[in-house]
């Protein structure tokens, strides 16, 4: 396998947490719920996914439980911001702390402090018969773990849901103009709550992917800002699933590039290379973000009895 192929293969592998977390941010945001707990929910997903997989053996159950846990947090965010109209940022930050604390707490309770942390098997690569034989494209796209296929199919599914179905139209209307949606009989609160729950679940899945792909164990700080970058990615992708998918290639590319340059021994101190993804994100947002349109009611709660439409 040549240099280019292996680089691209790593990029696609690294795309998954960005895709999942950013699509989760997007689906909640399109319904008007701005979740800022990504970083914490990814930690929680990583911890829970690892611990459950270790206890029950088998990564699928770990992924499912992590997703359910994240979904619960997302549901809670949706519920308190619609039912009680509490501030979305403040609740989101509170959930971030709670999830981050819970992640470390659960790990310490189950594993304790050990020099040699236990490991879970990482996800197997599944080759798609036939397609994986194509040069370049085959190894890059079709010799990956199931989660890679899931992330790509999810992005396609979300595009179809949002733009090709009646439900998607209603969902988008809730994030753009909930009053109009409400008057047409769309259940604004329910839409928001379940979109937020789905978003939380995706964020936790993004976290659970990390120990199952890279380390085989949970370490504090393993999320390393990917959750915050996912918010940036949602803005960068204009809150549209197809552009988020494309944008995640850029974010993952930066991450892999930073690792590559560190290993490759370029004459630049590795500390500066490690800043690369974050600086690049800021630069891109400076110049490429002008066109991005955010949902009109993003981060704002809907009050049915308010007299103004805004």
């Amino acid at each position, binding site marked *: 396998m040549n240099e280019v192929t292996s680089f691209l293969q790593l990029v696609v592998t690294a795309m998954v947490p960005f895709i999942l977390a950013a699509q989760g941010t997007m689906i909640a945001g399109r319904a008007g719920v701005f979740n800022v707990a990504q970083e914490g929910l990814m930690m929680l997903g990583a911890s829970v996914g690892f611990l459950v997989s270790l206890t029950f053996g088998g990564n699928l159950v770990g992924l499912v439980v992590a997703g359910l846990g994240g979904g619960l947090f997302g549901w809670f965010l949706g519920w308190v911001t619609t039912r009680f109209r509490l501030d979305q940022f403040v609740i989101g930050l509170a959930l971030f702390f709670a999830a981050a604390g819970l992640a470390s707490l659960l790990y310490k309770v189950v594993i304790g402090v050990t020099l040699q942390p236990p490991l879970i098997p990482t996800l197997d690569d599944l080759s798609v018969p036939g397609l994986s034989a194509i040069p370049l494209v085959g190894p890059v796209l079709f010799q990956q773990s199931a989660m890679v296929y899931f992330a790509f199919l999810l992005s396609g599914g979300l595009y179809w849901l949002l733009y090709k179905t009646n439900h998607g139209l209603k969902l988008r209307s809730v994030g753009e103009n909930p009053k109009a949606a409400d008057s047409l009989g769309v259940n604004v609160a329910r839409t928001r709550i379940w979109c937020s729950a789905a978003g939380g679940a995706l964020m936790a899945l993004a976290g659970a992917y990390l120990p199952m792909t890279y380390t085989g164990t949970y370490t504090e700080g393993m999320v390393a800002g990917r959750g915050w970058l996912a918010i940036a990615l949602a803005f960068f992708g204009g809150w549209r699933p197809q552009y988020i998918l494309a944008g995640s290639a850029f974010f993952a590319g930066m991450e892999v590039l930073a690792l590559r340059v560190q290993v490759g021994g370029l004459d630049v101190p590795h500390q500066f290379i*490690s800043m690369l993804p974050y600086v690049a994100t800021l630069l891109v*947002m400076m110049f490429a973000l002008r066109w991005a349109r955010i949902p009109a009611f993003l981060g704002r709660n809907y009050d049915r009895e308010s007299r103004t439409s805004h």
Partner: protein
Amino acid sequence: MTTTTAPVQTPPRTETRAGRGNALARQVLAYVVAVLMAFVVAGIIIAALGHNPFDAYRAIVTTSFKSGFGLVETVHKWVPLVLLALAFTIPLAAGKYNIGGEGQLLVGATASAAAGILLADLPIYVLLPLVLVCGVLAGAVFAWVAAWLMDRFGINEILSTVLLNFVSFGIVDYVASEVWSDPAAGHPTTIPIGEGGLLPLVGRPPMHLGVLLAVLVAAAVVVVMRRSVPGFELRAVGANARAAQVHGIRVGRVAVGSLVVGGALAGLAGAIEVAGVHGKLIEGMQSNYLLLGIIIGLIARGNALAVPFVAFGIAVLEVGSSAMQRSAGVPSEMVLIVEALILLFLLFSDVVGARLRRSSR
């Protein structure tokens, strides 16, 4: 971002003195109830984990007050917490979320350490002010970068401040392991700064004078926020940016200014950590002050006068958490969950309070 809802709910202003007293009593009651409920829920979790919640709470609450050392440790912890909480609260008053206190603290600490190492031979009355000023300026400049990105390019300030945190990690790591590295430390650490750059210690057990500095700064912030024109403009922008603009307040400039001042305070926290606590720059010295600062700011509901008191409570919890882990066997992360629960219950108390008032009317 224009979609931010007003984060701080000010209670309706009641005209009479008795009415104001009632409002204050209601607020204090809300805090008491929220803290109690958080401890009850966390106690259930602790019990479910198979530990004794009362032992755990005894360790948490008493460690700070059992000995002079405990109290000084708590007060030393209080300094960065109160400064980072103010770094979050001041922009919050203008409706901006500064999640970059960590980066601003680290860059401030780096600049302080640089000044303290490069000019190590200067006498204290020159070097110490220089060390502190360098920290403040560096924090302010770092926050200004985020503010400029927000103002000029419309980048959400939550993102620009957060992403710069990660940039600051690289800066600290580089300075501590390449530029002025202390190879004996076994962890990215710089060599000590000059004697003249250290904050004087007073009392027994020794307490550094950064504590006094933090008290003065916190008092000054309260006065400026409540009694000055910039403070008024800040609150006006936070309450209703459009109305403020119509009345001739430069909204963009106020928002940028609030972030820069916040960064300056976080930078001061970094400088005090270097000059008062460590005497050098250490990778990871920021601990989890960012999270705690945000929690304190939110629990204080953006009220600058409440921040120092809430910060002291959180400092007690934090100092007690390691004692709890030692004596009761409960992981110290439990404290983070307690703090999140206090915040959530406090927010819920608004809802409940509003209901009660409506039904009693």
